[in-house]
């Protein structure tokens, strides 16, 4: 069936099968491969995207359910000011290794810092529940988000 949605700011229209997930839609129909598939049953967070402003598991959403709605993938945050800050801290705090979880982590980080500006490490850890990183042991990721949060909240940035 034909659906139209706003993807990273542009209207896109595709003829899709009802069974297609939003993750397969953005990857295979739209060629946006920053959205990764790590489990396809909603438990790893690698496919995190933003749907109508809310972080969403793209593997737990059908593309047809997104008809008329607004979807943003990491590609849509290329020049996003807050995301640029978050990226900088991920780079400085060694918040990534193999990079596979990274797009989901970045979108989750932005969501956490939008809901809980300047939050502490314990809060970040709890909010990262369900985002699997197999490489870093999370330490670098938590540090990245905390220090990005401090910069975004106008506090003195934490030492990397």
């Amino acid at each position, binding site marked *: 069936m034909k659906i139209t949605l706003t993807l990273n700011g542009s209207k896109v229209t595709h003829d899709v*099968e009802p069974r297609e997930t939003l993750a*397969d839609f953005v990857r295979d129909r739209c060629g946006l491969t920053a959205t990764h598939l790590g489990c396809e049953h909603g438990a790893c967070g690698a496919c995190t995207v933003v749907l109508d402003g809310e972080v969403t598991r793209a593997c*737990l*959403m059908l593309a*047809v359910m997104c008809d008329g709605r607004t979807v943003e993938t990491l590609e849509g945050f290329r020049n996003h000011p807050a995301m640029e800050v978050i990226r900088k801290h991920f780079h400085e705090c060694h918040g990534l290794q193999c990079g596979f979880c990274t797009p989901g982590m970045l979108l989750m980080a932005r969501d956490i810092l939008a809901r809980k500006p300047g939050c502490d490490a314990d809060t970040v850890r709890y909010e990262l529940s369900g985002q699997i990183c197999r490489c870093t042991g999370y330490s670098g990721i938590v540090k990245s988000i905390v220090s990005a949060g401090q910069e975004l909240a106008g506090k003195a940035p934490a030492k990397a």
Partner: protein
Amino acid sequence: MKSAPFDYVRPESVAEASALLAQDGVTTAAIAGGQSLIPMLSLRAAQADLLVDVSRLDELKAVRETPQALHIGALTTHAAIEDGKIPDPFNGLMRRVASTISYRAVRNHGTIGGSVALADPAADWPGCLMALGATVHIAGPGGTRQQPVVDFVKGLYETTLASGEIVIGFDVPRPTSPLCWGFAKVVRKSGAFANSIAIVVAPGKGGPITAVLSAAGPRPIALANAARALGNGAMSDDTLRTAIAADLKADLPGADAYEQRLHTATVLRAAREMQATS
């Protein structure tokens, strides 16, 4: 890990949705947030010929306050409850429960109606709504009906929902005085399906106490002995343990020694938390 093919339709009204779901000879499923259904479809552990998307039906979104109750529309998400976007006459209990369900991205779409309609034994809302004495509103081909949640949830993934019926929302009675509550949950890891959930509520000092244990049996269990002991002002661990043991023996006879210790521990923790706030 891709779903088998199915058809999809997004009806404009509850009546239309109900008619679509009630079709003969077609395996239908209502989809709201889809956070439980879609992974089951992807794993091909569940199959449907037709998904009926009820996620945009305004009738399922209504949240209303009356002097007696809060009406929570079935499509209210866990995140909306967590964030306090609906009124909270329960002194934070529902917000706390919501904040522990799965993960934030799932909470953004998973709905309270879907949770209760699915009746997963490890789910949080059936037990919580039971503890709060909530009533479920249902619409179907034969009109609408209401039923206490405690009667609605019958067993493992089993409710009284008949073909074509849809959960519209819940009426949750307002506590007569500030709710005292305790909530304890044991999970293998954060956000995982629970192994034990205990909720103990008392609508203010001296009110009738309710204790509900979830994720233990096929459906949530109201712990009558524990509630009574608490109501009688039982304070010692031993008294409470004895009461909980009696409940488990009566309502969860299959529980092994570890499960008994585990559930006893969560109920005790919830009870202590409730007492600390009262």
